């Protein structure tokens, strides 16, 4: 294929990569004072990339000898990732100024990690997949530790790095197994190789390889039993970074997981379905029960995200178009709820210091009714109460599971959903019925309040945009099943 037609497919990635490098040069010569400019330029760049994704080709087309694929599925997820990154970067701006994170590398590393995620969702080869994952994780390790003077941040970075490196090792080990037994790393070749099931003498090798790959990807989406890093990293990392962690990488990894399982390993559906079911049940249950005792809101969000990932995996376990559609919808909803919640957490500031304890929210309805309403909306939505956005996410996921006759999974999921509603509602109760503590500071930056309001509207009125989103998700999902 002509190099120009290939470049046409990667305009969004190219745009981000080139501008990140240019911004790096600007930052290197202008120093940390250019932080604010660079952040805004990065936001614009991601917006442009978003447009380029939309302008990109509609029919699935691959470039670079099938290493890279662009289809509706990858486009949908790229837009989600970019939106998540843009929103968190806007949230980060006032926080960084206040907390003295003025390294200009901050937005640049974020750009690089977004680039890595876009490469992940467009990967059509095991090697491309690995490089994408590494690019995003490496940037995230650094971002987690970017407040290097704070012990907790350094601890978060180190823990994330060590465990992430371990999971990369496991991923590579699994990939070599698969490669060794099929002689191919490309997704198309693998799909062909497994289209008639697996030959008996390959079975153990490929299955072991697949399980290793699954483990590593489960680590990236922080599904139980590979979740241990999540609470510590979420707690230690600077709050906007935590928001970013809980959104973009999760979405990218989940999309990647879906593509890997449904495309190359689609022929091994029976083998991986049980693994996914187990991971899903464990994540939902663990996310629900472990969050009950948390006192730190960032840790609570960590457990909540583990639980949400469990729900998303329910959709994946059904292995159908409807299931994949539900996965995409859930991820979209999850994006809005999480950005909103983290915007509220970023507003928890008293006497110029960030507070993270849940009981600091007590009686918020008296001191700050607007924020209380927003946070209530997000909590209700996370708990899955109709007609808020979270409800639809859960509804479609469980519907797909029932269609696929996964009744046990559905029942356990519903129970977990009820348990998790407990701790979401506890926060609401705290805000409305408990004795008020001191007020939060008023000056939180208009960016944060703007996003809070926006996200609470989206979450409340999600039913209006539900059908277009569903349609788009359906097109995206069906492009995988071509």
């Amino acid at each position, binding site marked *: 294929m002509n190099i120009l037609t290939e470049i046409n497919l990667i305009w969004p990635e190219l745009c981000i*990569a080139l501008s990140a*490098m240019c911004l*790096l040069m600007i930052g290197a010569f202008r120093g940390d004072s250019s932080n604010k400019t660079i952040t805004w330029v990065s936001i614009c760049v991601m917006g442009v990339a978003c447009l380029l994704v939309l302008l990109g080709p509609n029919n699935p087309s691959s*470039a*670079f*000898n*099938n*290493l*890279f694929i662009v289809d509706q599925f990858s486009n949908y997820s790229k837009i989600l990732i970019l939106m998540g990154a843009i929103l968190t970067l806007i949230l980060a701006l006032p926080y960084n100024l206040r907390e003295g994170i003025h*390294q200009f*590398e901050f937005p*640049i*590393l974020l750009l*690089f990690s977004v*680039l890595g995620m876009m*490469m992940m969702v467009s990967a059509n080869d095991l*090697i*491309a997949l690995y*490089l*994408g994952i*590494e*690019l995003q994780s*490496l*940037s995230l*390790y*650094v971002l987690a*530790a*970017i407040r*290097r003077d704070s012990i907790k941040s350094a601890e978060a*970075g180190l823990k994330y790095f060590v465990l992430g490196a371990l999971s990369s090792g496991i991923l590579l080990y699994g990939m070599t*197994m698969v490669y*060794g*037994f*099929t*002689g*191919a790393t*490309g997704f198309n*070749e693998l799909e*062909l*190789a497994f289209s*008639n099931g697996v*030959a008996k*003498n*390959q079975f*153990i*090798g490929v299955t*072991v390889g697949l399980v290793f790959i699954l483990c590593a990807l489960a680590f990236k989406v922080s599904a139980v039993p590979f979740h241990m890093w999540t609470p510590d990293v979420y707690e230690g990392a600077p709050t906007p970074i935590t928001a970013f962690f809980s959104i973009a990488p999760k979405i990218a990894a989940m999309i990647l997981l879906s593509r890997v399982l449904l495309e190359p390993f689609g022929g091994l559906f029976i083998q991986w379905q049980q693994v996914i079911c187990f991971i899903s049940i464990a994540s939902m249950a663990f996310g629900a029960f472990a969050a009950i005792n948390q006192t730190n809101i960032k840790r609570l969000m960590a457990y909540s995200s583990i639980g949400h990932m469990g729900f998303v995996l329910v959709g994946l376990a059904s292995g159908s178009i409807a299931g994949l559609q539900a996965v995409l919808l859930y991820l979209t909803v999850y994006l809005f709820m999480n950005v909103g919640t983290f915007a509220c957490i970023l507003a928890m500031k008293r006497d110029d210091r960030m507070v993270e304890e849940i009981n600091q929210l007590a009686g918020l309805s008296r001191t700050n009714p607007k924020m209380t309403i927003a946070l209530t909306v997000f909590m209700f939505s996370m708990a899955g109460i109709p007609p808020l956005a979270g409800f639809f996410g859960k509804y479609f996921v469980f519907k797909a599971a029932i269609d696929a006759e996964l009744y046990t999974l559905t029942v356990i999921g519903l129970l977990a959903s009820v348990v998790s509603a407990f701790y979401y509602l506890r926060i609401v109760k705290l805000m409305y019925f408990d004795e008020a503590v001191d007020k939060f500071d008023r000056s939180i930056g208009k960016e944060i309040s703007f996003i809070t309001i926006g996200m609470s509207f989206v979450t409340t009125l999600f039913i209006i945009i539900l059908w277009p989103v569903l349609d788009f998700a359906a097109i995206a999902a069906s492009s995988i099943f071509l």
Partner: protein
Amino acid sequence: MIISSLAFYLFSFITIFSAVMVISARNPVHSVLFLILAFFNSAGLFVLLGAEFLAMILVVVYVGAVAVLFLFVVMMLDINFVELREGFLQYLPIGALVGIILMAELVLIFGSWVINPSSESIVTTSIVYNSDTTNTHALGQLIYTHYIYLFQAAGLLLLVAMIGAIVLTVRKRPTVKRQNISEQVAVRVDDVIEVKDVTSGSGI
């Protein structure tokens, strides 16, 4: 050829031996030195395979640069290895268990290793390799055409690693005086010296 198989056994024996010594040596500096020996002998194995370019790059990059920095760090850190080994026996059972499981898997797998006949035909990357091209050329032709995307992605990865290392370590120390060479060179006599006429007996 007897010589090449002798060389193979020599290199592989030393590689394995030094790999074992890396994890069992008491002194961390010795560990690193054995690691270097292992790299070196792996390079020898590459030469035997006819992959001379990879062999040399392995020596230049890993032995010549990476391991030097390792050695540097290990020497400077003065690690207390007795303390490091304290939990060793405690973790031995679980470590051994994991090792045995992985070993069993490998045995199971290699016991039944057959490449899928259908996948052999679908492997697309047949390397353009004949006796005229050296393997440096062959590698270059593959990396810069077929795998250009991965090559560039790996480049970005290294760039991020570099940025990360700088972000996490560089500190601006306002108290340290730095030499600004261009400033020094740009100094003119008039800027720093003032010539005065001193009348004798009165001073300035």
